[in-house]
């Protein structure tokens, strides 16, 4: 078999089980691809030795029979996940040199299932960003290219998206606080799933905004997302918000039969100034689901407009609290201090040197909205609006809607540096279609559905009922089959 790195999880699993290929062969193909892809800047800490030894062990397990689905699958891991003994710095200078003494629950479950770790993937610093331009490792480049510009892969899981789209790995882990899995998936023509809040353990995943953060798979197909979610999900006593629910066989839910399903089209997502191509893609997706036998209904989610401002109160508030731990005392970077400096100067200099501008900005916004006198005006008000946003969805689901179809992003990938001088709020608008899902704790998936006239991928988002990822994945599967998106970026790197 040639081009082994181009396989997805399902194909690789089936080929390994048949004995057509080994995990060592797949792993070496990916390691070679990573070696040749420095220009993308997706992988930032390579773990080739770990990969080869895990692959050898996986091959033995497959040979013995009865290996789990993810056994022998080479993966990229977002730098936000703590990996024992491996650099884990959340794309930040402040965690330079940090090698955790523990392993995140999700990655432990993946290794227990026999998966192979190729290395750590670039990301926006502390997952704060929508273009992967805030990383201490530098920008990630999108493998899709239509002219001489380098394009963003989106963010914050930009390294994960770029690596999967460029076939440097079979799949990757991502995390999503406001759209950080789904937006980069849409920008790179791959599938990205944010599960229901509480489906996957957050233990050992560096925290950004704890009430919104959720990890999920970034893959080459909906089937792969279903398989990988099965290995990532599950109750964890170490995360008090992880749900005590059995993990169903998500792959078994993929029948492609969505006859009689009610798909809601929310009128509030028809934004002013939305590019015609995005509108067209959305209409095409609606037709595809209708042709597959679904019932299309117009719905209203009246508080949609307030999701972004509510998010940019709640997320920075939680971040300012979570990131208080980076003080130069217990781990990571500590600034050199001057004569006569005390502990406060040490904190202040450490955090000024260690955090990049966007992270500093969000910590300070969070500090402001939580400070005495403003707590009610901003933070409590945002939490009330969040209650209303969640209720919008509950009302729609109570009316019998099974899933909601929306665009994933308001545009295709833009050029790196193009937003450099823009107001920070302009960058936040990238999350306009995705952020509601985090505020309401729902599962959402981005499925590649077409190319724009420049030839760049565009994604559609499906939003499901809480805990019904299986049903959501099945609708996504039907959409994927109807859209027939097979385009790949032409190799230039």
């Amino acid at each position, binding site marked *: 078999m040639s081009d082994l790195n181009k396989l997805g999880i399902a194909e690789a699993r089936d080929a390994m089980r048949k004995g057509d290929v080994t995990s060592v062969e797949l792993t070496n193909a990916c390691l070679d691809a990573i070696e040749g892809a420095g220009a993308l800047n997706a992988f930032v800490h390579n773990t080739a030795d770990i990969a080869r030894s895990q692959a050898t062990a996986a091959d033995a397990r497959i040979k013995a029979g009865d290996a789990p689905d993810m056994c022998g699958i080479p993966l990229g891991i977002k730098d936000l996940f703590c990996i024992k003994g491996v650099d884990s710095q959340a794309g930040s200078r402040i965690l330079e040199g940090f*090698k*955790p*003494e523990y392993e995140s629950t999700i990655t432990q479950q993946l290794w227990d299932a026999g998966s192979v770790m190729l290395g750590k993937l670039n990301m926006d610093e502390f997952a704060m960003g929508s273009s992967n331009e805030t990383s201490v490792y530098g920008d990630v480049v999108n493998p899709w290219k239509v002219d001489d510009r380098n394009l963003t892969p989106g963010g914050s899981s930009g390294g994960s998206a770029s690596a999967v789209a460029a076939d440097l790995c079979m799949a990757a882990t991502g995390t999503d606080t406001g759209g950080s899995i789904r937006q980069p998936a849409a920008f790179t023509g791959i599938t990205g799933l944010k599960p*229901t*809040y*509480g489906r996957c353990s957050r233990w050992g995943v560096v925290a950004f905004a704890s*009430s919104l953060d959720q990890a999920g798979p970034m893959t080459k197909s909906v089937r792969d997302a279903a398989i990988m979610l099965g290995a990532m999900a599950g109750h964890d006593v170490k995360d*008090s*918000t992880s749900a005590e629910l059995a993990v169903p066989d998500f792959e078994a839910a993929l029948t492609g039969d969505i006859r009689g399903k009610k798909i809601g089209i929310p009128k509030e997502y028809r934004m002013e100034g939305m590019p015609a191509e995005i509108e067209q893609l959305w209409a095409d997706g609606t037709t595809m689901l209708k042709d597959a036998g679904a019932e299309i209904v117009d719905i209203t989610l009246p508080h949609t*407009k*307030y999701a*972004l*401002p*509510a998010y*940019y*109160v709640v997320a920075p508030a939680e971040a*300012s609290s979570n990131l*208080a731990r980076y*003080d*130069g*005392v*217990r*781990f*990571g*970077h*500590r600034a050199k201090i001057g004569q006569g*400096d*005390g*502990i*406060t100067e*040490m*904190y*202040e*200099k450490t*955090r*000024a040197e260690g955090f990049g501008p966007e992270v*500093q*900005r969000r910590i*300070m*916004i969070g*500090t*402001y909205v939580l*400070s005495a006198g403003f707590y009610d*005006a*901003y933070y*409590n*008000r*945002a*939490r*009330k*609006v*969040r*209650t*209303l946003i*969640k209720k919008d969805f509950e009302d729609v689901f109570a009316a019998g809607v099974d899933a909601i179809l929306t665009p994933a992003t308001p545009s295709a990938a833009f050029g790196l540096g193009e937003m450099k001088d823009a107001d*920070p*709020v302009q960058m*936040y608008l990238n999350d306009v279609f995705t952020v509601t899902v985090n*505020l309401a*704790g729902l599962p959402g998936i981005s499925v590649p559905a077409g190319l724009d006239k420049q030839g760049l991928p565009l994604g559609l988002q499906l939003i499901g009922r809480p805990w019904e990822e299986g049903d959501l994945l099945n609708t996504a599967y039907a959409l994927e089959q109807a859209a027939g998106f097979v385009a790949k970026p032409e190799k230039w790197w």
Partner: protein
Amino acid sequence: MSIDTATAARVAKLARINVPEEDLPKLKDELNGIISFMEQLNEVDVDGVEPMTSVTPQRLKRREDVVTDGSQPEAVMKNAPDAREGFFAVPKVVE
């Protein structure tokens, strides 16, 4: 509401982030941009609405108040920028 440079300096102090004096006007402008974006929330009628505490309807579980892990001082200190004799070392805190 809009903030002035003195407020920006106070926020930076509360956040324990050193912001040089000359950068405060730019910081103030950026924060004001974001805050004015948040002001949209004032359009929403939130009378009688409970602020969300948990996105999934669940009660946080309780457990016995007993030690479940620990006695790993070496692992705990391993990543410290300055650790001595089992302690985190910091600049002098009290005179």
